[in-house]
């Protein structure tokens, strides 16, 4: 009897969870559409100023990278080399258009 009750409970809960997942998928579609509308309708207003970025990362050297969607960044795992500073690398490769890099140095 206990197992039968548990079975009934589980089946009911799985139905609820299935319903919940469908609602989540629907809500994701709504918000993605809403984001597309915002970025397309107001494309001339989706920008930040250099000072906005500099204020977020005080005292740092900043590289702002604008590149086509899908541009690939590869960051190799740093290797320690005896008696010389560890090298850190970023390799960027675009297939759809040029990459623009801006050096932001508030100081």
């Amino acid at each position: 009897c206990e197992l039968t009750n548990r079975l009934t409970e589980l089946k009911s809960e799985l139905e609820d969870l299935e319903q919940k997942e469908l609602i989540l998928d629907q809500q994701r579609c709504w918000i993605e559409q809403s984001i597309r509308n915002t970025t397309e309708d107001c494309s001339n207003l989706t920008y930040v100023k250099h000072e906005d970025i500099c204020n977020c990362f005080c005292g740092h050297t900043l590289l702002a990278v604008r590149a086509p969607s899908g541009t690939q960044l590869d960051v190799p795992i740093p290797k320690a080399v005896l008696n010389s500073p560890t090298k850190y690398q970023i390799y960027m490769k675009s297939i759809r258009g040029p990459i623009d890099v801006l050096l932001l140095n508030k100081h």
Partner: protein
Amino acid sequence: AGCLTPNSYTYRINSSPSKELSDINRMIRQGCV
């Protein structure tokens, strides 16, 4: 395309989730292998 350089983490602009950037930053902070 797979990784462009061996033993590296990959992120695609405006496509990969932000979490992949957090993974890269953590890997850099943990420093050398």
